[in-house]
């Protein structure tokens, strides 16, 4: 994968992450924040996979697996709290 192509991918993903983060900061309600947290988490999962690929270390994928599997727990708990079931 050439240098320019990986730079393009990194800029696209970083811009997506930054935009979701701006919504997370400037949002007015908690539901907005939870949605933005969900989006930022998934974008950063892909960012981490790309960084593991660029570093060339397959054992870093374990971290991404844990991250993808467990970061949804936080969003699920926030949703349960908003429902009043926690």
């Amino acid at each position, binding site marked *: *994968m050439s240098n320019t*192509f990986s730079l*393009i*991918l990194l800029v*696209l*993903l970083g*811009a*997506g*992450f*930054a*935009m*979701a983060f*701006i*919504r997370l900061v400037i949002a007015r*309600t908690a*539901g*907005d924040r*939870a*949605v*933005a947290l*969900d*989006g930022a988490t*998934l*974008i950063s*999962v*892909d960012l981490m*996979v*790309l960084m593991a*690929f660029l570093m060339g270390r*397959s054992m870093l*994928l374990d971290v*991404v*697996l844990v991250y*993808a*599997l467990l970061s*949804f727990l936080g*969003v*699920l708990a*926030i*949703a*349960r*709290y*908003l*429902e*009043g079931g926690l």
Partner: protein
Amino acid sequence: MILLSALGHVLLLIGAIFLCISGLGILRMPDVWNRMHAGTKATTLGSIAFMLGLGLIRPEWLPKLLVIALFIVLTNPVSSHALARAVHGVPEEKPDNLQRDDLQEADS
């Protein structure tokens, strides 16, 4: 082989563009339902395309990347579903121009 690698590059680019657009949608959409639409569907599709593309470029990573994609497919719709149901109960998130509310009728 070179064909698969080229396909992988195309899939990577598609996934990255989808993820960037979903970030833009989270930032720019007018209310929380539209933001949810952008922030959950587009990220799921973009993630699947991204994992597949990376797996095509480097085939020995493909099983683990597919497991990551499987977990994303399992978990992300569930969390966004729970979030949508929860936000539906919050009164100040209700949009002004709402014509018809099927979930309200189904619950009551």
